[in-house]
């Protein structure tokens, strides 16, 4: 039984001293957020405020909700994870023009295209405030700062345009001085299912005072701001006597009077992406309000829907089984290593000359097969990833790995990762079983066969056949140029490949 949740602004005010400069636009935004949250009827514990780095990113400290002051530019990523793991939460991302469009320029795009159900508030003051006044990605051309002493030569990004291009399904713009309108935009954004992106034009009183003066000052905003309302003609001006009409190059500003009547003025359609892009280009008048809003499937719905679907088909997954299924390796300890060398006998001396003479006398296989075989390399075999172990590990661990992976050979790798030995089930049978050896007391390097024969990836398959037939090796390590193991081939792998491909 749900009870009505009654919260007030006070419930969202933390006990922290707000450390923004006196006169900063952030105060107004903070107050508006604190007034908007109680209107949403969401339990207090379900709000999360995530920020990156910057002046605006101090925001979570001042909100008496869950929150994370996170990594520069990465707030959308962290927020995506939070929302995915608990879709019940109302997740808010507080970011600035630098955090969102420079450092986190990538992350903001992907939050948009995935349509994660987040509410992103981008405080745009067109300057790096926290680091004391350098150029930001929204600073206009010509801006003189400590990092652009002769004026910026970079064209600025337009946050609304970026959000539209990334695929955000709710894109709005407002100004710090318009608290009532800002509150309504936040409220609508919170109700919106999918990513809501709001650019808040905010004044940095110290390093970029008056950046938005033309749109925020009481004497100018009536003439320069266009307040958008869905389904209403786009008119503005102190006397509501100007409006936008469609022209060949987008929108054109006209006076309502003799030439144009109110019927000629274009009507705002927030579901039209074309309309939204055209509006994003305007600086006179500056469109404020909900520029674009459509409904599309959200990332959460997609992901959870897919999980439920796969669970219904395949049952609940076993993470542990997946984790142990393949491609695992053991990180070896660093340190000096002394290997007792044990050189094997020469291969040539083991050849049975009489047998060779006998088989040489036989009728050979057809030439094209011979050619085909000699052209095959171990690379074509696609050797299985090796399971490796460090030389200082104990034999009980080696045994555990072989049993767990159900494999007959473990490769022993030195701290610099080159192949230094091998342990096979043959070794276990011949030199371990029945000897009374205490597995925990014996290290891998004491037990392994050092200096194992290994082949490079570009070795001919016939060389592997050679070693397996003449030396009865059931496993051959495959190494790269630096003698690091890249695979293992077994006699089964080799035979199955040859039968299939020859």
């Amino acid at each position, binding site marked *: 039984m749900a009870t009505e949740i009654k919260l007030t602004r006070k419930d969202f005010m933390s006990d922290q001293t707000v450390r923004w400069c006196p006169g900063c636009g952030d105060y107004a935004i903070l107050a508006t957020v604190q007034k908007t949250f109680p209107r949403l009827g969401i339990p207090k514990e379900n709000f999360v405020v995530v920020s990156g780095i910057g002046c605006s990113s101090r925001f979570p400290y001042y909100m008496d909700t869950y929150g994370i002051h996170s990594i520069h530019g990465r707030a959308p990523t962290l927020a995506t994870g939070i929302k995915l793991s608990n879709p019940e939460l109302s997740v808010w991302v507080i970011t600035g023009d630098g955090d969102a469009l420079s450092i986190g320029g990538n992350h903001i795009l992907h939050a948009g295209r995935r349509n994660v159900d987040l509410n992103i508030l981008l405080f745009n003051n067109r300057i790096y405030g926290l680091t004391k006044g350098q150029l930001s990605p929204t600073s206009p051309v010509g801006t003189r700062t400590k990092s652009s002493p002769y004026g910026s030569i970079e064209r600025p990004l337009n946050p609304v345009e970026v959000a539209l291009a990334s695929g955000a399904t709710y894109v709005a713009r407002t100004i710090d001085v318009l608290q009532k309108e800002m509150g309504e935009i936040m409220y609508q954004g919170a109700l919106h299912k999918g990513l809501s992106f709001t650019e808040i034009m905010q004044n940095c009183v110290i390093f970029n005072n008056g950046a938005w003066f033309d749109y925020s000052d009481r004497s100018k905003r009536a003439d320069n701001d266009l307040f958008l309302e869905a389904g209403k003609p786009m008119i503005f001006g102190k006397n509501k006597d100007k409006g936008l009409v469609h022209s060949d190059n987008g929108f054109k500003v006209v006076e309502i009077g003799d030439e144009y009547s109110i019927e000629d003025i274009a009507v705002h359609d927030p579901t039209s992406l074309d309309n939204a892009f055209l509006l994003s280009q305007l600086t006179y008048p500056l469109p404020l309000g909900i520029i674009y809003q459509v409904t599309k499937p959200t990332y959460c719905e997609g992901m959870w829907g897919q999980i439920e679907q796969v669970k219904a088909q395949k049952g609940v997954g076993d993470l542990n089984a997946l984790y142990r299924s393949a491609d695992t390796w053991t990180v070896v300890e660093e340190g000096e290593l002394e290997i007792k060398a044990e050189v094997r006998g020469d291969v040539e001396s083991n050849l049975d000359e009489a047998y060779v003479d006998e088989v040489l006398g036989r009728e050979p296989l057809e030439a094209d097969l011979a050619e085909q075989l000699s052209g095959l390399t171990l690379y074509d075999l696609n050797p299985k990833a090796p399971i490796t172990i460090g030389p200082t590990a104990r034999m009980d661990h080696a045994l555990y790995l072989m049993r767990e992976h159900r494999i*007959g050979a473990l490769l022993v790798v030195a701290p610099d990762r080159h192949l230094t*030995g091998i342990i096979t089930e043959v070794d276990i*049978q011949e030199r371990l*079983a029945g000897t009374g050896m205490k*597995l925990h007391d014996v290290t891998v390097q004491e037990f392994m066969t050092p*200096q194992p024969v290994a082949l490079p990836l570009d070795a001919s398959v016939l060389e592997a056949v050679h070693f397996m*037939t003449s030396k*009865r090796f059931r496993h051959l390590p495959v190494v790269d140029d630096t003698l690091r193991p890249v695979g293992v081939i077994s006699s089964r792998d080799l035979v199955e490949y040859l039968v299939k491909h020859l």
Partner: protein
Amino acid sequence: MDLIAGLKQESVIKMNLADYCTAEADASVKDVLAAMNAQHCHNALILRGGKLAGIFTDRDVLMKIADNPETLDKPVSDFMTSEVVTISKAATAADALALMSLKHVRNIPVVEDDGSIVGNFTHFSVLDFLAEKFPDVTLTHYPNSFRRFSRRRHGG
């Protein structure tokens, strides 16, 4: 002629089937291990009254014996695989290989109609067959690309 066609033409008993040794079912694990090691063999076919009763391999040693000394005095029949996949000596090498792949086993004992053992078909049987076809490459030419562990440190 391709490899599989060659194996189809070859009777399984013409293959190298020597990769095994035998032991009695009531012998202790310890004794069977000693016999296997003495013969450098890793697959023991276990007999009871001259007939195949099971198979005991180095994989069984790895999985069941290696860290359990108390198993050594028990009879090998407690640890062997008693349901052995076998093949008639009338089969072809290709049949044996297909069976091996199908049952996912590494040893296919080849048996007479009365169950007595003719030999043991393994992957080595196929590799030996192939090596015979390419003696100049696989047997007489010393491979030139293989690497041994080097004491020289690489990359550091």
